[in-house]
């Protein structure tokens, strides 16, 4: 049957089982939007394309399905780029569709023309410019396939407006066959044997697991191996929740703001088993001094480029983490590492995660209470900076896909739209964005999207009136010369003349706004927020402005040169 490009778009998305689209229309996507008018796909109109991309990202992280967003050409496509780069760094399956000026105008600097495939090439897993309508269905099929398989990632499809109007026979490819793209899933049996041998010979092993474990859904296998061979587990920011945070073998997050015990475990381990992690600089600290006592490094990853990129792995295993860990589980022998685990416990007791216990309202306290009242069962998203690290340290999710954070790119403004996407994907879950006052303002306009679509998310602003992480660095390393970090009118004191008044902003949008100054107000405010239905709630927690994120491994220092308080 003949279909127009716009009809092919809708039909293909239905076949890909797409339920929700996030985006904004514009001149050169009108044919598609006309077909979306009565299509059985929910369309969420956002207020900025960056918001749309992050919502699709939050949707994808919460479910494991590909998130989908749509934008027009030129500024629409350009506004998507931060969201695409963010998904690319964190390996999140996303498919972005952009309109493009008519084929005959491409290259002529037409109105709202930008080279969308050109500008997104380094920040997508792959991208396509549709040149003929007969290729369109196949390209959509391939785009979803590429986004989901192997190491997942964002894929952009750029569609000139004349292609949306042109028609052809609709043929849906039953199978995807790309001769140049064959991800490896099965780990090499010899390598898995070598890994088992290294585990058998190790006295101080540690699992270092990253987002790849979440992407592969390898949680069960990971837990069973850890228990069978008695191996402590540290997770990256991307993998928080991939291993139960209350498990006796869980030693918390590693890296710059990781736990004392996790960083010391890495530095003293004789074996590191990296699974779906990429030895990024925030995790390794100073490379030359990283993990000096290791005899073996096992690195399991679906992406060969991650292996031996920064840290050489002598036992690389390329493939899917789930199937490799399942194979490994079969051949490893039960072991006990009592001495090693006791040592790690001692490190933990020496410097547990803590903060001052006085009457002031500390941001860490707010996160602890959020964890307490939701029992760690809520989906938490974070913005970026201090709020993100406090959330990572003090929110202990019970399950995977319940801690969504911008890891690689560190995108301020991510958390709120991601929370909207996650809530739309999982309407029965409580979704809370742990935010900073700086980050929240980067996509605050999406309050409109949340209100209009009746999206019940809670934004918990840890409001310190500063770009907190930058001011922490200035406090620690730049002699308290606070340069361009104050988010209030000077010379006022912080909080005396706040810009903006978040409660009023929330109310202006039709959301609920609450403000908290004191410790004892925290739980009541959270309880009140959790009772609200069908609309977003913004809680402005006015916290101690000079609170710091500790522990901290200063940039360029080794993991065991960790500082635990202001010297």
């Amino acid at each position, binding site marked *: 049957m003949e279909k127009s490009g716009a009809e092919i778009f809708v039909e293909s998305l239905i076949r890909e089982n797409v339920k929700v689209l996030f985006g904004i229309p514009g001149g050169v996507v009108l044919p598609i939007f006309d077909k979306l008018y009565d299509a059985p796909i929910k369309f969420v109109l956002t207020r900025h394309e960056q918001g749309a991309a992050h919502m699709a990202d939050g949707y994808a992280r919460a479910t494991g399905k590909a998130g989908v967003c749509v934008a027009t050409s030129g500024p629409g496509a350009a506004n998507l780029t931060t969201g695409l780069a963010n998904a690319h760094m964190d390996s999140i399956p996303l498919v972005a569709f952009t309109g493009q000026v008519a084929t005959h105008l491409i290259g002529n600097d037409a109105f709202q023309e930008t080279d969308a495939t050109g500008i997104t*090439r380094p920040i997508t897993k*792959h991208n396509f410019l549709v040149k003929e309508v007969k290729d369109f269905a196949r390209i959509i099929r391939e785009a979803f396939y590429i986004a989901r398989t192997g190491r997942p990632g964002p894929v952009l499809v750029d569609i000139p407006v004349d292609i949306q109007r042109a028609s052809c026979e609709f043929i849906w490819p039953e199978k995807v066959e790309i*001769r*140049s793209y064959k991800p490896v899933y099965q780990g090499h049996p010899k390598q898995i044997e070598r890994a088992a041998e290294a585990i058998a010979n190790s006295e101080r092993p540690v699992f270092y697991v990253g987002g790849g474990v979440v992407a592969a859904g390898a949680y069960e296998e990971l837990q069973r191996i850890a228990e069978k061979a008695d191996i402590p587990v540290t997770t990256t920011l991307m993998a928080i929740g991939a291993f139960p945070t209350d498990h006796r073998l869980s030693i918390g997050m590693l890296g710059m703001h990781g736990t004392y015990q996790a960083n010391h475990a890495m530095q003293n381990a004789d074996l590191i088993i990296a699974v779906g992690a990429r030895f990024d600089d925030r995790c390794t600290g100073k490379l030359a001094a990283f993990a000096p006592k290791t005899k073996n490094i096992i690195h399991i990853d679906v992406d*060969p*480029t991650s292996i031996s990129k920064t840290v050489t792995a002598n036992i690389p295993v390329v493939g899917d983490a789930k199937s490799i860990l399942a194979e490994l589980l079969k051949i490893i022998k039960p072991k006990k590492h009592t001495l090693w685990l006791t040592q790690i416990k001692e490190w933990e007791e020496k410097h547990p995660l803590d903060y001052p216990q006085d009457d002031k309202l500390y941001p860490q306290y707010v996160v602890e209470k959020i964890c307490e009242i939701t029992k760690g069962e809520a989906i938490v998203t974070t913005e970026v900076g201090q709020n993100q690290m406090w959330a990572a340290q003090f929110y202990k999710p019970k399950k995977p896909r319940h801690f969504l954070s911008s890891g690689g790119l560190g995108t301020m403004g991510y958390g709120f739209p991601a929370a909207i996407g996650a809530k739309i994907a999982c309407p029965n879950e409580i979704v809370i964005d742990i935010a900073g006052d700086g980050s929240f303002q980067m996509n605050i306009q999406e309050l409109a999207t949340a209100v209009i679509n009746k999206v019940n998310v809670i934004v918990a602003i840890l409001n310190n009136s500063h770009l907190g992480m930058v001011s922490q660095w200035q406090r620690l390393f730049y002699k308290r010369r606070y340069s361009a970090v104050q988010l209030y009118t000077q010379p006022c004191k912080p909080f005396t003349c706040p810009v903006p008044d978040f409660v009023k902003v929330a109310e202006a949008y039709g959301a609920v706004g609450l403000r908290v100054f004191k410790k004892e107000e925290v739980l009541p405010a959270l309880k009140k927020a959790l009772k609200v239905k069908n609309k977003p709630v913004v809680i402005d927690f006015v916290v101690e402005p000079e609170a710091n994120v500790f522990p901290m491994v200063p940039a360029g220092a080794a993991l065991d040169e960790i500082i635990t308080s202001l010297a």
Partner: protein
Amino acid sequence: MMRRTISVLVENKPGVLARISNLFSARGFNIDSLAVGETEDTTVSRMTIVVRGDERILEQVEKQLNKLIDVIKVSEYSQVEHLERDLALVKVKADKSNRSEILQIVDIFRAKIVDVSPNSVIIEITGDEDKIQALLNMLRPFGIKEMVRTGIVAMARGSK
């Protein structure tokens, strides 16, 4: 620093060259030369890339190339018996007094004079890197006015 010749089979589609050159610039890899052309299969192009770096960089170059969706196959020739050829056109200052001396050199290298003017000649030479370098060394004293090279192409010996 090592020098390695890498052969990359890619889909013959627009944008593929940009993907490859983007990869090299974004990751800070250095390209010595790059030659592109169709293969016996018109849907496939072959890029021959000469790259420099230490072992870790060269390993990353190969892996990153393989990761690009449009790359069909990456092979490198350091462990393989193979031929390498580069073609250079060299414009050299030449007049009556030294033209015959230049001709002699060109003969020894089995190169060709492809253009003559009162003040210059253009020499065409095909060969591997060493041969072309050797000729250039001999020509330099006469004054090289201009040079253009195609970049190295390579092929494994034998039936494989």
